[in-house]
């Protein structure tokens, strides 16, 4: 039995292109891992605004003879007050390029959770439990779509390098 080599990747583009996301990701209003020119505005009154979506996946880069299942996501620590992360499970076949049209609608309340998403916490939460062989390269299992929110309680000020907890994607290999 040989274990697979797996990498956390982000999908962008209209016909998805997957690339290494382990060097970091910037949440913004763009279909980009690194863009810092399309910032999310901090609400000046009670309310929550959201980033454009980010499509993450656990991808096999070196094949094995194992299977992967129980894909979970969590934050490495708590986020700064006023900032939050959310996720949802999307099948690979239903990949959608990040765009203004699929950006969650703003809310008039602080601490809002976008429709269809689950609040990310420091405890592992499963987004996909289907078992897939690691015998071929590419994304293994469903996409974990993630958005970031900022609400009126955020007091950290503007910037292009606002820190968020790391996102930990885990899976069981057998």
């Amino acid at each position, binding site marked *: *039995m040989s*274990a697979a*080599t*797996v*990498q*956390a990747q982000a999908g962008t583009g209209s016909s998805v292109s997957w690339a290494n*996301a*382990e*060097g*970091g*990701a*910037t*949440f913004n209003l763009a279909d980009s891992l690194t863009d810092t020119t399309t910032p999310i505005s901090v609400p000046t009154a009670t309310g929550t605004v959201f980033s454009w979506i980010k499509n*993450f996946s*656990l991808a096999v880069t070196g094949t094995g*003879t*194992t*299977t992967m*299942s*129980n894909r*979970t996501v969590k934050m*490495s620590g708590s986020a700064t007050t006023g900032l939050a992360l959310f996720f949802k499970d999307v099948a690979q076949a239903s990949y959608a390029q990040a765009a203004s049209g699929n950006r969650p609608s703003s809310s008039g309340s602080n601490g809002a959770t976008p429709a269809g998403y689950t609040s990310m916490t420091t*405890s*592992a*939460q*499963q987004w996909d439990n289907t078992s897939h062989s690691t015998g071929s390269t590419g994304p293994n299992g469903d996409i974990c779509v993630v958005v970031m929110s900022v609400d009126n309680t955020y007091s950290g000020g503007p910037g292009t390098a606002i*820190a*968020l*907890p*790391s*996102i*930990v*994607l*885990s*899976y*069981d*290999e*057998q």
Partner: protein
Amino acid sequence: MQNTYTWIAAYWDERVLREEDAPQGFVDVDQEQIKSVALLTAENKLVYCVDIPEQAHAIFFRRRSRVLNLTDPDNVQFGQTVHCIGWEHNESAVYLFVLANGITLLTNDLQAI
């Protein structure tokens, strides 16, 4: 990739199946005949063992993590590998999680670590 532990399954008829002798991995284990599942160190020392109750389904997996560093993109982080042996039967389960540093957790919560 060198794993901290490998698994070994012991059967009621005193046969054993080691991970290196299972081309398809833990799915090669005969669930009807398994008596216990254990973890061996690289030196072939048996360090952790779980007995499998009758009719229970023996479990083994390695829980691996990949980290998206949103704080310092120049600091690439790697998640640790956690080994797990145990069993599941209907609504009951026992999971023995073993971290890379040897710390263990015995629980019925699959997502405990």
